């Protein structure tokens, strides 16, 4: 009796284990069943629509459909996004309801693939353009080549360099949602207090250094510039002096160069002058700038809405130039259609994406969040042209450059190479040694050893 019990237990255990663990391998299309399960409501609506269309051809309003998307807009720009979605839900005549679910990046990353492959995920996704390649290669998103034809939106109205980021191997996988670079924020009040011209932002790295030193007032807790240890875009300083990290195709490692030694030594010296708080965290830098305790720092445009709400007297300008010019890493987000979407979901998602590309929405998004404008018709809008911050941002957005956007290991380069490197440089370790070690690590990640 006992043996049978134990044996049965073991058998059950193994069976269920195999089901759970190897189910994916043994059974190639669970996603199909999955989408059947979850989209049953949607298929139902689609069927209903057909029936009704057959019954009464004159029905104007479509059957109600609810689509959802996931994103990680946890900052103040997420508030505006929520408002726009709510506005769409109220005003659209197609009976579409869009549900928005915002979660932090790590949760999103860990949940999304499993959710999509089991058909329990969202109908569409709002994510960084650097993820398109990975998502496409792992069969998580669908091509949307017919988007422009179906919606009838004029593609030529939008900047080509923004659009091309949503394509992979010539196929369209995303509809651009926003485009951004990194910018230099500066506090005009602190500039004035330090005797600098508040309308004259630093244009070069030398001017940046001079301004940082002038604005620093450590006794009162005020620093010239914030150099956070975990800031992800120090590559812009390296580029400025002709250095680089990795080639855009990921086949070459440029990290260990004379130019980079020079730039990083300059940053280390800057740090030694006490112009930045030590051991600063990137989120903390946002806070300190908002509190008027940092005269300058670099960040993406997503802080603009928050700063405007707080009434800070600040300016925004391009990343300063070094000996080789000024560059800033590009970024952007696109709407993507998750695998498993049926025709009804696809059509509803297209409608929402088209709504996003309408002048009014793009204008609101740029106006309130300060994201650069990338549509010609919006650019011509008088209200946009009158927005000083936005004009500055748009002016500062011409120096974009691709930083590991097409590499699968991009986030690993940031986490395992660049962050430890900058932590060590900023705390005063020998620059040449740090670069050598970081370069070895980068070789390892790129598989160049």
């Amino acid at each position, binding site marked *: 009796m006992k043996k049978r019990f134990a044996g049965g237990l073991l058998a059950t255990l193994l069976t269920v284990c195999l089901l759970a663990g190897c189910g994916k391998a043994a059974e190639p299309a669970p996603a199909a069943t999955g989408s059947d399960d979850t989209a049953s409501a949607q298929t139902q609506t689609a069927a209903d629509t057909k029936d009704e269309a057959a019954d009464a051809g004159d029905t104007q309003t479509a059957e109600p459909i609810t689509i959802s998307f996931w994103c990680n807009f946890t900052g103040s720009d997420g508030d505006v996004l929520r408002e726009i979605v709510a506005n769409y839900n109220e005003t659209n005549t197609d009976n579409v309801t869009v549900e928005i679910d915002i979660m932090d990046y790590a949760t999103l990353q860990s949940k999304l693939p499993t959710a999509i492959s089991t058909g329990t995920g969202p109908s569409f996704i709002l994510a960084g353009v650097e993820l398109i390649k990975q998502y496409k290669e792992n069969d998580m998103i669908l091509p949307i080549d017919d988007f422009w034809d179906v919606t009838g939106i004029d593609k030529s109205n939008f900047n080509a360099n923004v659009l091309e980021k949503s394509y992979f191997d010539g196929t369209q996988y995303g509809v651009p949602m926003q485009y951004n670079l990194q910018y230099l924020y500066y506090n005009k009040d602190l500039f004035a207090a330090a005797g600098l011209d508040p309308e004259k932002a630093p244009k070069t790295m030398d001017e940046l250094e001079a301004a940082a030193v002038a604005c620093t007032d450590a006794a009162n807790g005020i620093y010239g510039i914030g150099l956070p240890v975990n800031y992800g875009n120090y590559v812009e300083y390296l580029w400025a002096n002709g250095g680089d990290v990795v080639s855009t195709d990921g086949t070459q490692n440029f990290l260990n160069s004379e130019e980079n030694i020079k730039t990083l030594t300059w940053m280390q010296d800057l740090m030694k002058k006490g112009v930045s708080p030590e051991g600063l965290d990137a989120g903390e830098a*946002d806070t300190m700038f908002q509190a008027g*305790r940092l005269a300058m720092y670099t960040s993406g445009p997503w802080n603009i809405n928050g700063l405007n709400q707080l009434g800070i007297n600040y300016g925004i300008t391009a990343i300063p130039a070094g000996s080789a010019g000024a560059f800033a890493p590009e970024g952007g987000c696109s709407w993507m259609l998750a695998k498993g979407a049926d025709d009804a979901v696809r059509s509803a998602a297209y409608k929402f994406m088209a709504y996003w590309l309408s002048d009014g929405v793009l204008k609101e998004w740029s106006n309130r969040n300060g994201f650069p404008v990338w549509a010609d018709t919006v650019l011509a809008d008088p209200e946009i042209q009158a927005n000083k911050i936005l004009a500055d941002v748009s002016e500062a957005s011409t120096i974009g450059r691709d930083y590991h956007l097409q590499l699968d290991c991009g986030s690993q380069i940031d986490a395992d190479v660049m962050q430890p490197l900058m932590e060590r440089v900023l705390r005063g370790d020998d620059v040449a040694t740090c670069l050598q070690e970081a370069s070895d690590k980068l070789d390892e990640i790129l598989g160049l050893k």
Partner: protein
Amino acid sequence: MSKKAFSIISNLILILFMLLILLPLCWLFVSAFKSDLAVNAWPPRFFPDKWVSTQFTYVWKILPIPVMLKNTVCFVLAVTGISLFFDSLSAYAFARMEFKGKKLLFGIILLTMMIPFQVVMIPIYLEEYKLGILNTFWGLVLPRAASAYGIFMLTSFFSGIPRSLDEAARIDGMSEFGIYFKIILPLSKPAFVTLGIFHLMNNWNDLLYPMMLTCTQEKRTLSAGLATLVGSNAIKYGPTLAATVISISPLLIIFLCGQRFFMEGISTSGMKE
């Protein structure tokens, strides 16, 4: 050392510890009423210059708080109730009954406490999907319906109850169920209260678990829902503080209301021999 000197010194130390606990918590609660500007202000102030509730209205606006609260309460109560029952049944068997493989089974159950959730996160997700209970109420409750910790704790508690009591009953012909219900359970009320509070707290505060097993905001628990405010791209400290206060307040209120019962329960749960 005289009794008086000891009492003075010990009370001084205790007051110091009390301040160490209460001051940060007070700071947390009053800071939730600061404006965005005041949260980041330098020099930092303990109390807000002006008390505002904007952070709370903001959080209330962007998250379906009442729904999440309802989810949390249902989830936590179900888990606590079911798990107390199942745990105590097993614990009774382990503490009072003899059966083959007892030591082995107990060891195996203890082993389950050692598994970090991150390890089984994805398998559980896939399994729940196969069973069709993903993103449902039971999908959240079932994996927590028995806890190794509870079995472990109750077994050690039951072992402390003098055997003479139930042996007498056994001689009188009482069944095992009878002994469990009529003798062990009434004697173990304090242990149940303690364990109940542990389950209540752990499940209320759990983050990753409900976050993984729910797919929509409407199914999410309070802690998991509020955690979505804290991002890596940008943290809004004001709302974060308010969210923190919202998530811990209900539990604190329950605890403070029931603390007399709870603390007395614990202090009488000592096993006398």
